């Protein structure tokens, strides 16, 4: 059989292939030849064949059939064989392969070989890819070599030990004695690898770290070595652009960082050397900057004094001005890490950071953006926002969502005026409207609602934006909602902030109807516009047109739209008397947290606050002077009934019911004929938060009281404070019945003085079981903003033993804590 072709020959041949298919053919042919050669157990050419196999492997072809051959090469006596064999092992025999462990014995022998280059091969292979079992078996050999005086082997053994520790952390202890003297070596290779080994140990074991700090006194040793490096003259062997062994310097700085972390003494001991390195390192080349970078990282991580920290941040500031974009990148990353702890120092470099927003590199831009948002505060908000909005305009789509969110957050925290805030939001919506997160829509709506004096201005601007562009859904949704709410302000031209535009009702309805039919509108958006149109029925005079639109959608294919249209239709037909109350202006929503989208009323993540709103009677708007004020216990006249009990058609009942105790007034609608149990109502707007549990942590402070006890019916009140509003008392009534017969059709009603507001939730049932076998519970919420003494009049109706019973009572014995 002819000798297998040489490696270089094969490479040359394969490179002449003009197509992938041709190459594959050549490879297959050669592989076949190699396979037969392997089968013949040819020792002479094994090395050559495996080398060729490794080349083909790099091209992407399978080479697993060469694994065993690598093992044979490793076992050979020839150095050439071993060299290729170990290379093959590192490429083909990682720990996932079954035959990996077969190497162990060979490596063990070679670790004890007479030739250091063979030992080196073994150490290298073990240190690069030895499995845990192999490491366990051979750790002892490595430890032995760690103690040899041969620095060539010592340095390799150190890195091999690092690998062993990474694979089998429990073995760390056994290397401890051998590591002790490593730092007294002069050889830079040994020094460098020792520092790496010590670093690995410190990172993995806090005990080891403590030991090094306190017992070995590692810090002074390292400081000394570093000092020597810096102070010593030019050493040609280790010099890089005028700096002596930068690799070793960087590793030492990193180890110092770990040792100095959260330890005052160590940090103090390294203070001087850090300052020295920071001020004396040459910055004209990348090497110098690499050392400075590591120094900065160390200074920021240990307990350094403030002067040193400022020095570090200034270095980063200088980095930002460097022409080299790598340096700028690294600076921005570091500044991002330190901006929380050293905020003021980083602020000084704000303008440079903002300039980086215009950089071409995507990663630099992203970091600059994050950093910019972190630096925004009340003083620089206007300027910063200008830059950030400009960035939002021109940046890549991948940034827009995050940038938009950041702008909203910052605007919310630091807006200098409401007008500015609204303008900023408008700007974001119009430039990046389609990238805005879904949860921003309810957030913005809340913001707009609460900026009462800006309603006219807002709706006008949003309307104009809609005229321009209806493709960005969040913008369209917010706009529709506003037009629905404030359309009356729009057509009456009340805007003060800017020139009011002339808009007719028809034009507005045209726009909204346009949204309904447009292909660009999503179903959610359509929902918004339909509701907006409906709301305008109480604000505009063109009710007929609205009626028509609504009835058309009663047969819409979209189920959501259809339902809405049908319900609105019903509103026109059967419940027209309720329409104006239902579609009233939204009240101010209270917020607890500053930016949580879920704190917005009622939605379960739905982006449609408007729809459930109209189902709820807007019972309270501004405190005090609205027509819907609560009942007047004294006098009893000018009581305006608000929404009564459940409408039979709607599943969700009209929210907190306010009842008219003085039954001789004719209530439109009146109490429901059968005392139907309202199904669980959506919570009231009173303190704005639906996702809030009704009851907070039980304040044990307020004692319960008996409110009524007559004819066997006993009603007890227990109290809680509503979180977060301390003005709200939450009372739970417990009705029990000591008589022998059940009390059925039990209805509890209550009224409070004018300065209070009351909400009654659904009772647990309307049967009070006989003989205290159970109780009916019901929740009352009382808002008492003026902290007046709580008084209540209650009316009880029930059927007992076949006859109806009715009783009125006053409850005056509220414990002081319940209303103070």
């Amino acid at each position: 059989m002819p000798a297998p072709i040489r490696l270089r020959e094969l490479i040359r041949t394969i490179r002449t292939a003009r197509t992938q298919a041709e190459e594959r053919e050549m490879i297959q042919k050669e592989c076949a030849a190699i396979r037969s050669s392997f089968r013949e157990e040819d020792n002479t050419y094994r090395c050559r064949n495996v080398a060729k196999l490794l080349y083909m492997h790099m091209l992407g072809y399978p080479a697993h059939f060469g694994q065993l051959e690598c093992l044979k090469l490793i076992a050979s006596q020839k150095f050439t064989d071993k060299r290729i064999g170990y290379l093959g092992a590192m490429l083909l025999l990682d720990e996932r392969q079954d035959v990996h462990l077969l190497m162990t014995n060979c490596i063990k022998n070679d670790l004890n070989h007479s030739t250091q280059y063979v030992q080196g091969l073994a150490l290298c292979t073990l240190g690069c890819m030895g499995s845990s079992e192999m490491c366990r078996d051979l750790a002892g050999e490595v430890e032995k070599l760690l103690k040899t005086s041969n620095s060539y082997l010592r340095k390799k053994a150190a890195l091999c030990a690092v690998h062993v520790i990474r694979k089998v952390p429990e073995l760390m202890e056994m290397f401890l004695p051998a590591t002790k003297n490593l730092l007294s070596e002069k050889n830079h290779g040994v020094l460098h690898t020792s520092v790496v080994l010590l670093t690995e140990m410190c990172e993995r074991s806090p005990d080891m770290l403590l030991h090094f700090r306190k017992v070995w006194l590692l810090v002074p040793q390292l400081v000394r070595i570093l000092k020597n490096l810096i102070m010593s003259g030019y050493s040609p062997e280790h010099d890089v652009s005028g700096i002596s062994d930068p690799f070793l310097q960087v590793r030492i700085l990193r180890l110092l960082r770990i040792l100095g972390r959260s330890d005052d003494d160590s940090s103090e001991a390294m203070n001087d050397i850090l300052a020295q390195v920071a001020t004396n390192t040459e910055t004209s080349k990348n090497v110098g900057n690499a050392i400075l970078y590591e120094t900065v990282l160390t200074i920021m991580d240990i307990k350094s004094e403030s002067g040193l920290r400022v020095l570090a941040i200034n270095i980063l500031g200088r980095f930002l001005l460097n022409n080299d974009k790598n340096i700028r990148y690294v600076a921005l990353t570091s500044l991002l890490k330190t901006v929380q702890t050293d905020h003021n120092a980083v602020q000084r470099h704000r303008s440079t950071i903002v300039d980086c927003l215009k950089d071409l590199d995507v990663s630099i831009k992203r970091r600059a953006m994050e950093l910019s948002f972190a630096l925004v505060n009340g003083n620089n908000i206007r300027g910063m926002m200008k830059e950030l909005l400009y960035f939002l305009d021109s940046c890549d789509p991948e940034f827009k969502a995050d940038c938009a969110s950041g702008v909203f957050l910052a605007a919310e925290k630091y807006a200098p005026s409401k007008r500015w805030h609204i303008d900023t939001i408008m700007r974001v919506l119009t430039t990046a409207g389609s990238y805005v997160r879904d949860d921003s829509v309810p957030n913005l709506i809340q913001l707009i609602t609460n900026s009462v004096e800006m309603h006219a201005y807002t709706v006008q601007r949003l309307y104009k934006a809609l005229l321009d562009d209806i493709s960005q859904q969040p913008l369209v949704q917010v706009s529709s909602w506003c037009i629905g709410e404030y359309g009356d302000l729009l057509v009456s031209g009340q805007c003060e902030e800017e020139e009011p535009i002339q808009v007719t009702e028809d034009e507005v309805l045209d726009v909204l109807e346009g949204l309904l039919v447009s292909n660009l509108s999503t179903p959610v958006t359509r929902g918004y516009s339909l509701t907006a149109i409906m709301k305008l029925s109480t604000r505009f005079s063109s009710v007929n047109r609205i009626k028509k639109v609504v009835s058309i959608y009663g047969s819409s294919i979209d189920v959501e739209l259809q339902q809405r249209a049908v319900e609105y239709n019903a509103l026109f037909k059967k419940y027209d008397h309720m329409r104006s109350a239902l579609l009233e202006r939204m009240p101010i929503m209270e917020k607890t947290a500053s930016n949580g989208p879920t704190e917005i009323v009622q939605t379960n993540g739905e982006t449609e606050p408007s729809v459930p709103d109209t189902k709820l009677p807007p019972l309270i708007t501004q405190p005090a002077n609205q027509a819907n004020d609560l009942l007047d216990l004294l006098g009893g006249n000018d009581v305006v009934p608000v929404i009564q009990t459940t409408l039979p058609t709607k599943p969700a009942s009209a929210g907190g019911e306010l009842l008219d105790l003085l039954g001789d007034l004719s209530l439109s609608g009146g109490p429901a004929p059968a005392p139907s149990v309202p199904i669980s109502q959506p919570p009231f707007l009173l303190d704005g938060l639906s996702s809030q549990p009704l009851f907070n942590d039980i304040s044990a402070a307020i004692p319960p009281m008996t409110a009524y006890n007559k004819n066997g019916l006993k009603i007890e009140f227990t109290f809680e404070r509503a979180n977060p509003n301390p003005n709200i008392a939450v009372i739970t009534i417990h009705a029990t019945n000591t008589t022998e017969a059940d009390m059925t059709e039990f209805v509890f009603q209550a009224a409070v003085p004018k300065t209070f507001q009351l909400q009654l939730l659904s009772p647990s049932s309307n049967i009070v079981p006989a003989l205290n076998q159970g109780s009916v519970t019901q929740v009352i919420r009382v808002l008492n903003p003026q902290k007046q003494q709580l008084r209540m009049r209650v009316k009880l109706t029930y059927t007992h033993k076949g006859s109806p019973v009715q009783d009125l009572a006053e409850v005056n014995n509220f414990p002081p804590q319940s209303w103070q």
Partner: protein
Amino acid sequence: MMRFMLLFSRQGKLRLQKWYTATAERDKKKMVRELMQVVLARKPKMSSFLEWRDLKIVYKRYASLYFCCAVEEQDNELITLEVIHRFVELLDKYFGSVCELDIIFNFEKAYFILDEFLIGGEIQDTSKKSVLKAIEQADLLQEEDESPRSVLEEMGLA
């Protein structure tokens, strides 16, 4: 710690791959393909660093070859650039003005040099001279292996 180092040409041909963690062959191929795509798409004005998966990639182009290292979160990118440069210097000294063809035709030697420079992704020796000397000596050992045979062959006695 350095997780892996790749050398590849502008045409996307792999010239060297050194992995310092055990990874499945399939995954290696996937990562190499992905990374090559990402790096080759970078414009010259961009920085040498990028985030990829949970790693930091440090790359530099020397003539027609890209040298690409993957390091971990806590590693110093700037010094990694120096590590790459040092490796290129070693290759250059060894081959005498190294070019891509040298690496193609002598890939096993490129690996030997790398393995004399780094173990487990960490530098063994910061002295260029020391590393090159070791390679030289090892090469001599290899020659000693081979020379007796070729002498005999020459004499027609093998």
